[in-house]
């Protein structure tokens, strides 16, 4: 499932996703450093394509553009968007993973860069994480224009949340909106999954079955729109699974957030 999400990167870059797919991919992006790196590099490739189309515009375009900007005030910079969490956060080496060989490829191996945001930076990190969502969509007018599906859940009037803290100081929060029919997982200071594994998320239905709802492959602060209808879900679970995820949980849940305990 998430594997097919990764495969959307190229179509995303050339604008070939439909609106629904784009929402899903954009909800996935902030939590997936691999996809972020790939989107950046493929955008450069797409820009190269445009060189094949070069055409000198009429002078009238220049005149109207330069006249037009006089009436428009540029937006102020967004607070905290100039850096992504993985770019300048203090890195804490995780002993279990130091044996990894450096990646030889020409793709920036962001997934292998384990990191942890310092707790003191947590407040700043929240601002950063919120900002990241916007800047992946350079055509977006501003933060008030179109909210991503995840942001709509977070902003919904019927949003309910339930949180859990882990012993290492990280935390996870599930926000569910019945009106939006969706749930979002927010993580703070989440550790990376074990090497070669993912954290898989599950929506538990009324019959107690766990349905796959997404993957987290990286450490850090995530805002992840869970796939699937969350209207009647009773809980959200997290398990360790193979990198590409499983159809059913193969390990005991690390956490189960009970939506019956969720509060407005």
């Amino acid at each position, binding site marked *: 499932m998430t594997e097919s999400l990764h495969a959307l990167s190229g179509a995303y870059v050339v604008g*070939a996703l439909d609106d629904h797919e784009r929402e899903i991919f954009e909800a996935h992006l902030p939590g997936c450093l691999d996809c972020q790196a790939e989107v950046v590099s493929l955008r450069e490739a*797409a*820009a190269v*394509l445009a060189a*094949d189309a070069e055409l*000198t*515009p009429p002078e009238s375009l220049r005149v109207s*553009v330069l006249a037009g900007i006089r009436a428009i005030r540029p937006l102020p910079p*967004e607070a905290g968007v100039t850096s992504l969490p993985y770019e300048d956060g203090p890195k804490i080496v995780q002993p279990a993973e130091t044996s990894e060989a450096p990646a030889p490829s020409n793709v920036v191996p962001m997934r292998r860069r384990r990191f942890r945001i310092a707790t003191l930076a947590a407040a700043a990190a929240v601002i950063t994480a919120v900002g990241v969502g916007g800047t992946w969509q350079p055509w977006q007018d501003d933060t008030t224009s179109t909210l991503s599906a995840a942001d709509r859940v977070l902003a919904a009037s019927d949003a309910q949340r339930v949180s859990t803290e882990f012993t290492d100081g990280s935390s996870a929060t599930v926000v569910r909106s019945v009106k939006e029919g969706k749930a979002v997982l927010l993580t703070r200071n989440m550790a990376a999954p074990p090497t070669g594994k993912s954290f898989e998320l599950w929506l538990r239905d009324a019959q107690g079955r766990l349905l796959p709802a997404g993957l987290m492959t990286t450490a850090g602060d995530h805002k992840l729109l869970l796939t699937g209808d969350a209207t009647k879900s009773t809980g959200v679970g997290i398990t360790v699974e193979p990198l590409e995820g499983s159809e059913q949980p193969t390990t005991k849940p690390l956490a189960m957030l009970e939506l019956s305990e969720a509060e407005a």
Partner: protein
Amino acid sequence: MTRISSDPSGSPFGEPEATGVPQPVTGDDSRQNLGELLRRSGRGDEAAFAQLYDATSSRAFGLAVRVVRDPSQAEEVAQEAFLEIWRTASRFDPAKGSAVSWVLTIVHRKSVDRVRSAEASTRRDTTYHQSNAAVEHDSTAEAAQASMEARRVRLALDSLTEVQREALELAYFKGYTHTEVAKMLDLPVGTAKTRIRDGLIRLRDTMGVGQ
């Protein structure tokens, strides 16, 4: 004013093509310059924005024409895009790619929105034959004034498989969704997006960009 565009005054065929190690299309210098121009534009510097316009307008306009087709509509789209670029310049983040790709992403997005809304009803009837004809490389007039960079892009495009190239061109230059591309190229559902991605990856690696 400086215009970076195809310049016929040079000797387009006098110099051998660069061989061996691929050179980045946008060297670090021009990248930084355009990024700096964007940053100054974000602070309301109109002269900086004029320079940015001059450096990117032929790519932006050419892209809009390729996608929208009608030159006067393309001009409208390009104008909208540049005003948007001015307004949102402060949101450009050099850590997430070059200024050129940021500018062109906005132009492309606006262009695709335009064709999708304008042609939503009529385009369903487009036959493969028609669309295939449209995928052919551009007119001789454009080809004659192709810059060195454009010629390098074509060589790079030639290194793609036919399906990769067609899928990429239908998506990027014609604004079709990957689902539509799959139908047009008779590909199994879900494989067009893979061809598009593979094509972009090969293009990226051949041109040595985005690393």
